[in-house]
Structures are given as C-alpha cells and as structure tokens.
C-alpha cells in the first residue's frame, strides 16, 4: 500500500471503520438473540459440553499448579516478615481477584476460542453457512448465537473452578508440605476475602471476559477469508486479539473495582 496516495489511505480507513461497524452489529445481534437461543436449549447444551466440559481438565490442572506456585512464592516472601500464615490470604486474593479470571480467559481463548474460530471459518470455507442462508436458516441464530452464549456461561464457571482448585492447591503446599497452621491459614483467608468485594467482582470479571473471548473468536471465524490461509490467519488473530483484549480489559476492570 502506498501511504502517500490519499485515496488508498482513505480506503483503508473506511474499510477499517466498516470492520468495526460490522463487528458491533454482530455483537448487538448476538446479545439480542439471548431469548431465541435459550429457547433452543439443546444447541447451547451441546456447545457447553464442547467449550466447558472439554476445557475442564486444562483449567483444573493449571489452577492446581498456579495455586502451588503462589503458595510457595508467597511463603518465601511472607516468612521474612514473620507472617507466613497470611499465605492463604495471598493465594486466595490473587486467585479470586486476578489470576482466576485472567488465566482462565487466556486458556479459554487458546483451548476453546481457537476451535470456535476454526470451526466457523471452515464452515464458511465449505460454504455451509451460505447453504444455510439459501435454506432461509439464519447462520447467526443457528450457529453463532448458541456458541456465544455457551461461551459466556462457561467462562465464569471455569474461572470459579480455577480459583477453587488453586486455593486447594495453595492449601496442599502451605499446610501439609510447609506446615502452616491450618486454622490460621483459613481464618486469615476468611478475614481478608470479601464475598461481594472480591469473589463477586471476580465473577463479574470472568463474565466480561467470557463475552470478550467468545465474541472475538466468533467474529474472526465469521469474518475470515474462506481459504485455508484465511482460516489459519483468523485462528492466530483470535488468540492474539483475545489475549490482548483480556489483559487490557483486566486493567480497566481492576481500576474500576478495586481502586478505592
């Protein structure tokens, strides 16, 4: 592209704006289809199985190890100040507020987002979506909306599993391995973790990330070039864009929720 040619610059700006507009239109349609989607629960349940159940193993294992590492590292630092009992609080707060929603969203983008993009992209490349339109079946309603709402539902559940397993992993390292008193491990945690302020805000975060990751995956699949290269480029863009969006949104949400 020649940046000195005003016509070409104008064209690229216009097509960029058109992409944003198309994305916004798709998002509004998907959100508006909430009633119609849950009216056909079977489609959502099938997608929940593929997005949720199939992600459960990677989420559980990662949560466990993140909990192990948090407890070990937290203990090394806290024991210098003679407050090793606070390791439970440290593990629980960092998981519930930040790591649970964020790491789950990143893993979800890699595990489930890519498969969504590739599936939709291949359906487009194989002209299945066009065939549906020919039969007066709306592909957004029939294919995209159940996947979207299943992703939005699965994300907070997966994030909660991640945090809960991480807290248990932290307990495994802190109590049996290091030998911290179990009573003060839990009581410090319960004294510092607020149900609404921390757990509730973590759930809100993971719902927002569920919308973000699933929508980006579907948009990339639906808007990809219907060629093998196009599908592979769209899959890559899903992971890159979803990860960046999650990290940037996390900063904004944290600043809004925990600034006071």
């Amino acid at each position, binding site marked *: 592209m020649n940046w000195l040619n005003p016509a070409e610059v104008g064209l690229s700006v216009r097509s960029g704006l058109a992409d944003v507009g198309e994305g916004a239109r798709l998002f509004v349609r998907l959100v508006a289809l909430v009633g119609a989607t849950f009216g056909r*629960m*079977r489609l959502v*349940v*099938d997608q*929940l*199985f593929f997005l*949720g*159940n199939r992600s*459960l193993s990677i989420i559980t294992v990662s949560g466990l190890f993140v909990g192990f590492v948090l407890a070990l590292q937290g203990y090394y630092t806290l024991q210098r*100040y*003679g*407050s090793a*009992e*606070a390791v439970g609080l440290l593990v*629980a707060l960092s998981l*519930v507020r930040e790591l649970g929603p964020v790491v789950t969203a990143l893993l979800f983008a890699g595990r489930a987002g890519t498969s969504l993009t590739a599936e939709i992209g291949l359906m487009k490349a194989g002209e299945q979506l066009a065939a549906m339109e020919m039969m007066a079946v709306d592909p957004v309603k029939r294919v995209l909306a159940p996947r979207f709402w299943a992703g939005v539902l*699965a994300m*907070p*559940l*997966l994030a*909660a*599993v991640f*945090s*809960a*397993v991480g*807290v248990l992993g932290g307990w495994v390292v802190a109590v049996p391995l290091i030998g911290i008193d179990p009573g003060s491990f*839990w009581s410090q*945690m*319960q*004294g*510092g*973790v*607020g*149900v609404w302020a*921390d*757990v509730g805000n*973590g*759930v809100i975060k993971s719902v927002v990330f569920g919308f973000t990751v699933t929508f980006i995956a579907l948009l990339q699949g639906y808007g990809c070039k219907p060629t093998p290269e196009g599908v592979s480029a769209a899959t890559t863009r899903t992971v890159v864009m979803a990860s960046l969006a999650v990290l940037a949104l996390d900063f904004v949400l944290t600043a809004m929720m925990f600034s006071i």
Partner: protein
Amino acid sequence: MQKSRHDVWVGLFVMVGAAAVLFLALKAGNLLTLNFDETYQVAAKFDNIGGLKPHAAVKSAGVVVGRVESIGFDDKTYQARVLLQLEKKFAFPKDSSAKILTAGLLGEQYLGLEPGAAEKNLAAGDTITQTQSAVVLENLISQFLYSKAAEPAAPPAQPVAGGAKK
C-alpha cells in the same frame, strides 16, 4: 425440550462450577462469619482508630461478640465515631471499655471490649466512653524521643576512633 446426549455431563459441569463458587464464598470468603443473630448497636468514640476497618471483629476475652458496623468522623469533638453491632445474647455493663488491638505483629486490627462493673447494661444507642486508641508507631517513637530529650545528658558514648582526642 429436546434431550441432548450431553445433558448429564453438562449438568455435572454446571454443578462443579456452582460448587466452586460456593466454596469460594463460604470457605475462602467470610459469608459464614456473617451472622443473622439479632444485634444491638452501640457507639464508641476514639481519638485514633489506626487501621480499624468496617466488619472488623469485636472481641471480649478473645471471643467474637460482634462486628464493627461503620466508622465515621465527628467534627464536633474531632474524634472517630465507631458503630458496633453486638450480639443480643451478650450483655455488657454500661462502663465497659473498648480498645483497639492488633492480632499478631502485622495482623488485622480488632476491637477489644473489657467489661466494667456497673449494675446497668449497655443498651442499643448507648455510647462507650472509656476507650483506648490504637497504638500508632509514629506517636510511640516521638514519645520515646521526647522522653530521651528530657533526661539529663547521658555520659558521652565511647569515643569514635580518632575523633574524641583533644
């Protein structure tokens, strides 16, 4: 509604997720310590509350008997006004005293309630007058320095190498 062959597994997934949220709320969070017993409200005025926060425990003899409801500032007396919710089953004499204590070296601060000897008990809306503020490290240090300065000049310390010779 049509049946799906994944119904059972998806149901299991949803139950696991819900159990995780419940675990976080009950075991990691403090939902269990919220009590639904009847309480009565008592106020206490402190010169300095240090790091006391709402929802901090109110303990007497080490047993939790209530929670700190809210903390405000009284611009008439320039004191902190702390509202406490005490459990109705525990009654305290009217001249009980409150002090702000710290759990452990770096632990959270809580309110200790020491019973007095009065015949009448604290009732809802009463104010605890005998209070002891939180220990503020800066004040302790400055008190220490003042008391040092007030002492007669101590004998000179051991001469620094090469410095004190005349």
